[in-house]
């Protein structure tokens, strides 16, 4: 199947650009557009292809097909994407990240809450983790800018939200049937259900509006869901150049070791090229960025670039999960009829005074079961028998998914596995991450609250992840790897961190890092709006620097 326009693409280095950005996900895309928009010459080097929009319907069908893996939807896997998992739990990275123009946002769910004020000062407030060198107030204008850029539908007035300076660009998504069921049960139990900020176009933005395919995660065929290819294209309209299928192999630095001189990339026809620039931004995602720095080791920097602190690849975080699915016998739940996978959440346990301290961000699901067509394909029955089976199986489900705060720990790491190489002969990344009690307590609390809600609705639990009660056969281990953060953390002290508050590396004068890797703590909010806000902030710093 032809899935991209790469065969004829130009892959020659751009002549003396101002900025070279590695990675075309949300972090690279917003930053590139912000700089190109102000007249800077930007080149983006992206490891993956530019996917054809037309292929999205086909990818959506892969998602629904019972025998196709999540990794197949966006062509992940194979030698290019080899990695090692040394964690005790499965970390199916190639079902999580996407490589291509738009990055992992091609298959994200587009849930975009801001971090809370507390998330920047957990050490000060609760004696855990480490405080960020910036505060919520520093990032607040950039949150607003990011929301405007990507188009967020969210509630202006809602409890348990951080302070807002202005309204959301679009009204919240309409209340779904599942939201109504949850609200009724939550009212009885004293919990607050509130609209979730979603980067889905309800009409105000100049992309197609949501068409209700109901497959936001992992493919939005209409393009109503924001994905970062949008800002890559906007950057291109402002003159930025994008080279695709050019994985950067390493950065090279000058003789004094103070500046990056080139990003060395490989092309599909086996050539190696050098892209020079005044400023470099590593935005290759929180999995690959530490690897790239480690692969760039030199005589002067034998432990890898920007690693004089020894913290590259350390303090890696994720969010804990707590997916709970309930069944409401004899009740209609209108699963999936609504369209977007999520429209509301429960945020009151994010920043409350009760134990557990760990932040809890509960997302209420509008579809808690397999798609109807998937069930039909999965069955062996025919005709009327098949229909009867589907009638028995389908419907009546309700569920919630949670992201819960994990503390940064030095021993949760991304390193190089020298014993295994990718298709270019480079050692692959090795992830080793263990969730501690802190995040497991927060996940368990979310699982308990969801269970309580389902029981209040008159239902029973059919499937549960993240619970502390390990003796029921429906309890599954949590799923990990969705929200990688840390590994190149931010700080004032060069002996403890990789980048400074402007996201510039302490060690190299013209190397910035943009992405979840710079997070000091992980909060519970889905990370990408914060990644975007930080990227826009870094773009301002780079702009200032290029001006002077």
């Amino acid at each position, binding site marked *: 199947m032809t899935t991209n326009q790469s065969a004829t693409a130009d892959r020659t280095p751009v002549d003396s650009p101002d900025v070279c950005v590695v990675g075309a996900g949300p972090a690279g895309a917003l930053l590139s557009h912000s700089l190109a928009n102000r007249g800077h010459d930007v080149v983006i080097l992206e490891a993956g292809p530019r996917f054809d929009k037309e292929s999205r319907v086909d990818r959506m069908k892969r998602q629904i097909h019972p025998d196709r893996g999540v990794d197949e939807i966006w062509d992940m896997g194979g030698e290019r994407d080899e990695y090692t998992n040394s964690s005790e739990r499965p970390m199916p990275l190639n079902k999580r990240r996407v490589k291509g123009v738009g990055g992992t946002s091609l298959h994200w769910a587009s849930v975009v809450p801001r971090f809370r004020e507390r998330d920047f000062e957990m050490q000060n407030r609760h004696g855990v983790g480490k405080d960020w060198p910036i505060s919520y107030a520093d990032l607040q204008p950039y949150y607003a800018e990011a929301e405007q850029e990507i188009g967020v539908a969210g509630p202006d007035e809602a409890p348990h939200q951080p302070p807002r300076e202005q309204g959301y660009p679009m009204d919240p998504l309409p209340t779904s049937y599942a939201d109504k069921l949850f609200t009724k049960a939550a009212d009885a139990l004293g919990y607050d259900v509130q609209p979730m900020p979603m980067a889905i176009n309800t009409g105000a933005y100049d992309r197609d509006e949501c068409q209700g395919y109901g497959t936001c995660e992992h493919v939005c065929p209409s393009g109503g869901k924001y994905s970062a290819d949008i800002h890559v294209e906007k950057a291109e309209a402002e003159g930025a150049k994008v080279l695709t299928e050019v994985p950067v192999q390493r950065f090279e630095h000058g003789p004094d070791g103070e500046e990056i001189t080139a990003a060395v990339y490989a092309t599909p026809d086996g050539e190696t090229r050098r892209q020079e620039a005044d400023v470099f931004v590593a935005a290759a995602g929180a999995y690959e960025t530490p690897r790239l720095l480690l692969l760039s080791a030199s005589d002067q920097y034998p432990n890898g670039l920007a690693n004089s602190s020894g913290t590259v690849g350390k303090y890696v975080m994720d969010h804990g999960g707590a997916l709970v699915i309930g069944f409401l016998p004899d009740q*209609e739940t209108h699963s999936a009829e609504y369209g977007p996978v999520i429209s509301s959440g429960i945020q009151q346990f994010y920043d409350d005074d009760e134990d557990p301290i760990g932040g809890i961000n509960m997302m209420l699901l509008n579809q808690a079961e397999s798609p*109807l067509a998937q069930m039909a394909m999965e069955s062996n029955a025919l005709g009327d028998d098949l229909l009867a089976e589907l009638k028995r199986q389908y419907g009546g489900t309700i569920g919630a998914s949670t992201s819960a705060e994990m503390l940064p720990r030095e021993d949760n790491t991304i390193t190089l596995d020298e014993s295994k190489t990718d298709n270019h002969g480079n050692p692959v990344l090795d992830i080793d991450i263990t969730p501690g009690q802190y995040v497991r307590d927060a996940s368990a609390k979310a699982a308990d609250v969801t269970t309580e809600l389902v029981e209040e609705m008159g239902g029973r639990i059919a499937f549960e992840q993240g619970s502390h009660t390990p003796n029921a056969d429906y309890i599954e281990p949590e799923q990990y790897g969705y929200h990688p953060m840390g590994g190149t953390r931010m700080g004032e002290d060069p002996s403890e961190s990789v980048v400074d508050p402007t996201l510039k590396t302490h060690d190299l004068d013209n190397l910035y890092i943009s992405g979840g890797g710079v997070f000091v703590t992980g909060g519970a909010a889905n990370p990408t709006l914060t990644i975007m806000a930080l990227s826009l902030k870094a773009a301002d710093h780079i702009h200032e620097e290029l001006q002077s």
Partner: protein
Amino acid sequence: MELTRRDAVTALTAAGITTTAGCAGLTGETGSDAEPMEVLVSLADVLYPSDIEPTPEFIETFMYGRITDEESYREELTAGIETLNQLAADEQGGAFHTLSADQRRSVIENTDLRTGPSEPDGSDVARVNYYLLDELLFAFYSSPTGGELIGNTNPRGFPGGFGYSPSLEQ
């Protein structure tokens, strides 16, 4: 109930999807002198509930409108029909579309159709499962017509708009 193009076209056009893609492949002759569409209709007839009468229009719109790579799909379709006819000949002594509904059902039930693997690059039968049977099932059960039978007019995979939310049942 006769399936028409109507429920499909509006939504697919709204989604910016070409609805004519692939139609060209439907006029080609196959080894058994049937047009591919006849074979698909005869297959859909046993896959879909008995109240449903699959029409070429429905199949054309729902299936082919969603095929992005027409060329390779046409090849799979032709190859798939050949396999199907081979199985039908072995089991029931005739080309698939010439058999009665009961005979067609027994061809499926007595082979790896449906029960066997469904893979885009698998064995001949696995590819029939993937490109013919599963495509037809996807087309129907991700359409409002199929969805409605289980009470969901906007099943996942169908671009039926967003925000449907009836009042809570008391």
